[in-house]
């Protein structure tokens, strides 16, 4: 039986006999974001998982801070920090199986790193020495997607292809609250539901699309309420509660893995930093709001649980922090080295084989560079390493 046949053939029925094609009630999200930390359910969470989440959160925060610092030192062109959103980033990476795929948006460097992408390679795009800095197949992480929501149909297609091949592979796609307004969001979710593709959509609702608050983005009761319109379940979760996000994701991924089709998850969180280092958030929001969210910090929330339950002590916390510092130091050091660039790369990958036109252009550039080098040699100027002049 083909995937298509499984869905049965819809025959339109005159209204007297009309039936809804799915029961809408189970598709609607809870009234409030699902939480674990600070509730009784927390006691049931696996200590090993909590420890892992905690270590990754601390590491993630440190990564955000370090990357932002690198922009100030001119080592990164730009960095969109996910400070405040680490619970989503980290839980997304940890909930996946190794064979699964992650489709990050431009803000989700952290999720890629938590999934195993080299911390420096993950920053290639933002340093500017190339576009995607890692091989997407190595850790099954699609390129960080700058055009918003365009990665969502990719995730659906990949999940569908895996499903058709009978592979046990689920795709997890990340998108922001702003990205839900794009047509690609709609088309992706619709294809996913019609195909019953094994894909999960995680919306990080951090309250803003650059300067635009959610109220100007949607009038929906919640973004999770969009799910019913596609015939998939919608879940609403506290995006700063790493345990809750992990649990909701794990459930949705398992549901997809076992043929249950896609899920839309809205994680309610907050972008503590400005949109990027280049943005001035004081133009559009006040400190008090940021402060309110700092009180609901994902790391503090989890740390509270861990210490209350005695799962980690001060030494344990210190060890985690030291490990994060070491990662940051390594990142700093490696990012302080100039990347080695070959201008001929401009032409090497446009096609599998360069066209005759590209070969001509490559030769032209090579001749120009040779002439430059010759001129530099003649005038005795030292030819600096590529990119250093930026």
């Amino acid at each position, binding site marked *: 039986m083909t995937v298509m046949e499984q869905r049965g053939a819809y025959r339109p029925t005159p209204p007297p006999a009309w039936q809804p094609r799915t029961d809408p009630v189970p598709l609607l999200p809870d009234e409030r974001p699902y939480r674990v930390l600070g509730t009784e359910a927390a006691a049931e969470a696996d200590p090993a998982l909590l420890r892992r989440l905690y270590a990754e959160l601390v590491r993630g925060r440190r990564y955000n801070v370090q990357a932002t610092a690198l922009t100030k030192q001119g080592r990164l062109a730009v960095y969109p920090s996910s400070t405040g959103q680490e619970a989503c980033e980290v839980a997304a990476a940890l909930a996946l199986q190794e064979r699964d795929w992650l489709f990050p948006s431009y803000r989700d460097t952290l999720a890629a790193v938590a999934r195993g992408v080299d911390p420096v390679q993950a920053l290639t795009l933002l340093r500017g020495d190339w*576009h*995607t800095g890692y091989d997407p197949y190595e850790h099954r992480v699609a390129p960080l997607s700058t055009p918003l929501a*365009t990665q969502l*149909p990719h995730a659906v297609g*990949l999940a569908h*292809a895996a499903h058709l*091949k009978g592979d046990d592979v689920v795709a997890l796609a990340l998108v922001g609250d702003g990205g839900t307004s794009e047509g*690609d969001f709609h088309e992706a979710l619709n294809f996913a539901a019609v195909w019953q593709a094994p894909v999960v959509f995680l919306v990080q609702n951090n309250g803003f699309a650059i300067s635009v608050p959610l109220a100007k983005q949607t009038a929906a009761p919640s973004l999770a309420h969009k799910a019913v319109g596609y015939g998939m379940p919608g879940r609403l979760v506290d995006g700063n509660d790493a345990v809750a996000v992990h649990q909701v994701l794990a459930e949705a991924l398992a549901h997809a893995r076992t043929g249950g089709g896609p899920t839309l998850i809205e994680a309610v969180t907050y972008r503590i930093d400005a949109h990027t280092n280049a943005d001035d958030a004081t133009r559009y929001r006040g400190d008090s709001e940021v402060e309110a969210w700092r009180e609901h910090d994902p790391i503090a929330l989890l740390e509270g649980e861990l210490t209350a339950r005695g799962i980690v002590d001060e030494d344990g916390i210190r060890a985690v922090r030291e490990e994060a510092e070491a990662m940051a130091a390594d990142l700093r050091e490696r990012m302080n080295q100039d990347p080695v660039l070959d201008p001929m790369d401009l032409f090497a*990958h446009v096609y*599998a084989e360069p066209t005759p036109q590209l070969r001509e252009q490559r030769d032209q550039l090579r001749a120009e560079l040779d002439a430059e080098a010759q001129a530099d040699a003649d005038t005795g100027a030292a030819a600096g390493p590529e990119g250093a002049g930026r």
Partner: protein
Amino acid sequence: MTTVAVKPATMAQALTRALRDAMTADPAVHVMGEDVGTLGGVFRVTDGLAAEFGDDRCTDTPLAEAGILGTAVGMAMYGLRPVVEMQFDAFAYPAFEQLVSHVARMHNRTRGAMPLPVTVRVPYGGGIGGVEHHSDSSEAYYMATPGLHVVTPATVADAYGLLRASIASDDPVVFLEPKRLYWSKDSWNPEEPQAVEPIGRAVVRRPGRTATLITYGPSVPVCLEAAEAARAEGWDLEVVDLRSLVPFDDETVAASVRRTGRAVVVHESGGFGGPGGEIAARVTERCFHHLEAPVLRVAGFDVPYPPPMLERHHLPGVDRILDAVGRLQWEAES
């Protein structure tokens, strides 16, 4: 060896055959689009494929072009070779962002780690009495997008060969099908399809000595007709069918113009900012001292595609081509 009858076939039939053979040869080939399954496509190019290969290999998608191309990207990431049908030229525009920002760039962005062997079939051009948005020639948009191959057949045999080559290519290909040639017939042996040159080779369809008509797709038969008519005027026109706009076969084109010393580019797409400017410019760059006259262009007017009852005034026809040939400064000859 048995001799197989060379039977006349239409371009649409050759395309269907190419899809079928590609799907048979490679289980990774998936056809998808609006109405491509049960109906076999509005031009019936995918006729029979769903029945033969199943709905999962030839899939009726929801009605959303960005979604079709976007999911095809994901399928290609997983190793499939999607062949996407856009129902009409203008209905490929909703997929423009996916095409330009992802399909064309993925290979480059990932330093070749993630090739996207996606073929996007687009029925294009006019001459079939279509209402607005059904007759656009959109090749200029695709030509201006590095990372795409842009291919368009003019004969039944090329329709087969170039589509097979496009599907086999590891690069994304925009495959432009001239709507009004779908029902054009030709003797063509479907059992033993003629080997077709790799993508990127133009071909001289008609040799001639006094001027070159450079053209492609739906305008090829018109140019051949013009070349016949030109004999009465004493002109012996060469007709070059580009077959591939990207990559462009500078060699074949420039060799022809160097021989003839005069050239007219003919296409249906609007003239301003259309393919003809690029072609004329590159021919001039390469053949300047061989040219007796500027390379001229005969193109559609710079207007939104006209309603059916006026399209014959818009489409480059034999007379307009001959007028242009007549303006190639023949007096300089003597």
